[in-house]
């Protein structure tokens, strides 16, 4: 009679594991105590993931006839593939290899050497007992649809879409605003080169708009995503534009003649106006305007229809209804970007109360030649040029009251603001910063340049912006904004009277980011940014296969990074589409027909619709739809549903292993009680 032959390999990971866990002890323990459970060889090695480490396993499989392998090293999310690959090369079914974590879950989180070693032994025992119950598996192969969905038409989304489309594959680009372009379209200059944002962005927008492989869905929302990698089905809602795009030529007469003028909180950041029917900006792609029914005189009062009367092609259609389309795609790129931090939340800075406190986005529009002031830097009165300007960094960022993270782009943006103020006005400029973060190509040189231009750099977190005088006779304060700050380099409090304050607001995830993440089955950090599959090695993939992310959806980043992300996501997808099919982890549920009684407990439990029931035929799980969560397995009262990769037998065995005699406390006690027990109590190192 032969049982499984298991090899155990304990990795030192340099000192990462061996510094805390006594790896030799774990090795010896495994051979001695787990020998009766099939362990025929146990080794330790400095770096199991090295080619030499892998060869060790391959050699043992060949020479010792191993048919199960347990590697005790790092997290399976790190190297499971590596070791499965090694087993595969040696002719062992890769799924008969179990990687158990004694690094992330033992050596890196514990300090007591004895206790950590004991736990590592238990973890190894869990792996050995579990892998004994594992059966050979084959990856599932599914076809992959060639089209890709890109959500978000900012620079990251546009970049991803163009890369995919240029390679010859169809793309659906969804944007909720009337035009693609995103925040970049609002900017005047880009740091540190001071290129004109529009000059570099609009050609890409036009390319995307004209590309035969790109279908634009602007003024639209993704309302539902179902299916799985290779075969997602996506419902997109087209909100009514009230403009027939087949007829509209984009001439702009409607916008010109529309009598309704409203503050534009989106594109103009609330500092300028738009019409009731409008294109957010002249270079908008697509060129068609949208009619905003909330600010349309006809929709409000029932009369007007000026646009309709004056449209030369009769393109205005007040009867237009929302429309839903469904597209089938193989992969998804999430590029939903950011929203600026709401500066009103920092009450001490008085945004919303003091007219001459602006946000950096307001400033972007103000300095933009196409913006509401035609590029003039003026106070809220629309006339007066400021004689002094304070730029406050880290508004809403690096602040435990708001967002703990650094918004990454604001230091450079603030320096750009300082430069633009100096360029356009005679004003004295103060930069009030905590730390100056300029770690990009040409960034620090730009910082130097702004210093040389005479900007006053004051290191200190601004406490307050006020118009209240501390002393009535204090010079120069009356009628101005006073910036109260501790100048940490000079070591004193300062009150700096200025005419204008620009708040460098941080970046936040869009308010509906979590909802979108849920729709896609991906996870966000507590801050709301999408979590990468691996922050360093897989920075544009998400936890859900087939869903990628790019740009600020992943966290604050600048334009070059967003463009690179978009291209990287596209490259990942192109690699898969070109294969034609995908190999998926074979973690699936299946029903044993003989044991299913048709009780129908499971029928409503699958959110992916993988479970079907037909009288006479019984219950079935569709492996193409099954995502492997295992809810139905645990729910089946007859035990008729089983799951590959995470079977009851495997998990029960692992529990037993994790509580292996000798690794838990009551062992000594219980053995003492049971007279004549065959087991000799292990001399136990009790964790401190």
């Amino acid at each position, binding site marked *: 009679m032969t049982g499984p032959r298991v090899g155990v390999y304990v990795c030192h990971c340099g000192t990462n594991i061996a510094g805390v866990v006594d790896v030799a002890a774990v090795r010896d323990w495994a051979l001695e105590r787990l020998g009766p459970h099939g362990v025929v060889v146990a080794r330790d090695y400095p770096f199991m993931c090295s080619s030499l480490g892998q060869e060790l396993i391959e050699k043992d499989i060949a020479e010792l006839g191993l048919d199960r392998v347990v590697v005790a090293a790092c997290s399976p999310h790190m190297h499971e593939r590596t070791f499965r690959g090694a087993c595969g090369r040696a002719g062992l079914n890769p799924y008969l290899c179990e990687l158990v974590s004694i690094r992330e879950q033992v050596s890196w989180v514990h300090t007591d050497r004895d206790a950590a070693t004991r736990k590592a032994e238990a973890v190894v025992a869990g792996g050995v007992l579990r892998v004994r119950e594992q059966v050979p598996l084959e990856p599932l192969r599914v076809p992959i649809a060639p089209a890709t969905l890109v959500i978000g038409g900012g620079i990251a989304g546009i970049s991803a879409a163009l890369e995919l489309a240029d390679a010859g594959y169809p793309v659906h680009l969804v944007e909720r605003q009337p035009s693609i372009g995103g925040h970049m379209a609002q900017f005047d200059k880009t740091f540190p080169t001071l290129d004109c944002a529009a000059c570099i962005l609009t050609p890409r927008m036009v390319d995307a708009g004209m590309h035969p492989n790109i279908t634009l869905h602007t003024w639209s929302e993704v309302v539902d995503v179902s299916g799985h990698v290779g075969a997602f089905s996506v419902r997109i809602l087209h909100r009514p534009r009230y403009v027939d795009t087949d007829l509209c030529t984009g001439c702009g007469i409607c916008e010109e003649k529309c009598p309704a003028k409203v503050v534009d909180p989106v594109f103009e950041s609330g500092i300028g106006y738009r019409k009731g029917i409008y294109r957010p900006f002249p270079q908008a792609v697509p060129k068609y305007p949208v009619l905003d029914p909330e600010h349309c005189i006809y929709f409000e009062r029932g009369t007007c229809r000026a646009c309709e009367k004056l449209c030369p092609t009769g393109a205005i259609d007040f009867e237009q209804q929302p429309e839903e389309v469904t597209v089938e795609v193989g992969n998804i790129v999430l590029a939903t970007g950011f929203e600026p931090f709401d500066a009103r939340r920092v009450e001490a800075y008085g945004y919303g109360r003091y007219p001459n406190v602006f946000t950096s986005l307001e400033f972007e529009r103000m300095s933009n030649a196409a913006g509401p002031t035609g590029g003039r830097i003026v106070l809220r009165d629309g006339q007066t040029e400021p004689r002094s300007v304070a730029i406050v960094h880290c508004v809403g960022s690096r602040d435990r009251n708001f967002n703990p993270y650094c918004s990454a782009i604001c230091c450079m943006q603030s320096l750009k603001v300082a430069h633009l103020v100096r360029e356009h006005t005679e004003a004295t400029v103060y930069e009030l910063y905590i730390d100056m973060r300029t770690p990009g190509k040409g960034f620090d040189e730009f910082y130097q340049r702004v210093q040389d231009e005479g900007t006053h750099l004051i290191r200190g977190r601004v406490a307050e912006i006020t118009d209240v005088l501390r002393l009535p006779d204090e010079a120069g304060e009356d009628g101005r904004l006073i910036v109260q700050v501790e100048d940490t380099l000079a070591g004193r409090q300062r009150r700096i009277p200025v005419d204008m304050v620009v708040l460098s607001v941080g970046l936040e995830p869009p308010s509906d980011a979590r909802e979108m993440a849920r729709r896609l089955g991906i996870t966000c950090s507590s801050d709301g940014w999408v979590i990468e599959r691996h922050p360093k090695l897989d920075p544009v993939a998400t936890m859900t296969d087939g869903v990628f992310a790019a740009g600020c959806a992943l966290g604050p980043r600048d334009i070059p990074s967003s463009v690179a992300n978009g291209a990287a996501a596209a490259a990942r997808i192109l690699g898969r589409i070109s294969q034609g099919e995908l190999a998926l982890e074979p973690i699936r549920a299946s029903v044993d027909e003989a044991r299913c*009684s048709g009780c129908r407990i499971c029928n409503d439990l699958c959110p992916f619709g993988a479970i079907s029931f037909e009288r006479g035929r019984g219950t079935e799980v569709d492996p193409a739809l099954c995502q492997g969560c295992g809810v139905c397995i645990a729910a089946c009262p007859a035990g008729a549903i089983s799951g590959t990769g995470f079977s*009851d037998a495997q998990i029960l065995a692992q529990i037993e292993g994790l509580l292996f005699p000798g690794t838990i406390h009551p062992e000594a006690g219980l053995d003492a009680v049971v007279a004549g027990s065959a087991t000799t109590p292990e001399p136990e190192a009790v964790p401190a």
Partner: protein
Amino acid sequence: MTAPARHRLAIYWAASCGGCDISILNLHEAILDLAERFEIVFWPAAMDVKYADVEAMPDGWIDLTLFSGGIRTDENAHLARLLRRTSRILVAFGSCATEGCIPGLANLRPIEDVVDVVLGQPTVVDADGTWPLMRLSVPEGELRLPALEPTLRTLDQVVAVDYRVPGCPPESERIAEVLGRLGAALDGREALPPSGAVLGAGDSTVCDECGRARSPKRIDRFARITELGSIDPERCLLEQGLPCNGPATREGCGAKCPAAGAPCIGCYGPAEGVVDFGGRLLSAFASVVDADDPAEIDRILDGLPDPVGQFYRFSLAGSLLRGGRRAAGPSVAAGEPELVAAGASLGAER
């Protein structure tokens, strides 16, 4: 070799109500076939054979033993070991022997509490506080009452068991089927069933035999049968709010209870391969509770006032935990040294 005309059969009852024996008698005329095919060498419920006679039997002398009842006393344990030694095939027969059944519910409490309820608080007038006399010397020698063990164990927790026949009691027609099959195997006409097999029942659950119509499950309340105005004769009882254990209970009884409008109480034990009947059933029930927020879930679960009774009525002693915590610790009986046998409880005997 020639097959003996009649195989030797023993039928024993340990901690059992005798219902299993009655179910055998309920074979009616078929009992004559039994008598024809088997020579009954030991059946305390029906005939007089002394333990000494059994003790004198050679190893494996009995061809087949049907052992009903759980192991409650040292006498039960002794007979279990004795019959294991003397039997070729030992069958755990009925719910008590396979999973503890109703007597197993005593494992919720320490045995001292059980003794106190039975003897300390008698339901008859007992002014003197009568207590069993554990030993009595008579001219023929010393008489001794069996001592209680700290917990009730199933047969396979004490000795190795070849086959299990579930049911409280096993249905007579299924008994006939089991005896027929094992008889044929003993004759050499058929192969023995695989070791450890469950006989006299199917692999699926009661729902397979139940004629009621079923829909996808969503439970918004659990009710007692008395709380329902009327019961739809066609529709699944669980869907009507009755906590019916049928979905998790092994098929074999013919779904008699649900057919009569009473929810299945689970006497046939878990389906094939299920590790813990109660855990599995509670998982199934909870999975289809139609609520997402904890307060509402709580409200619905309040409809199951005695979850342990619901899920472990028959299977507690045979479950993963084998009983409640107060009965679980290592026990050294105090007070009456002989009434309760010293020794560990639950799984301590390793």
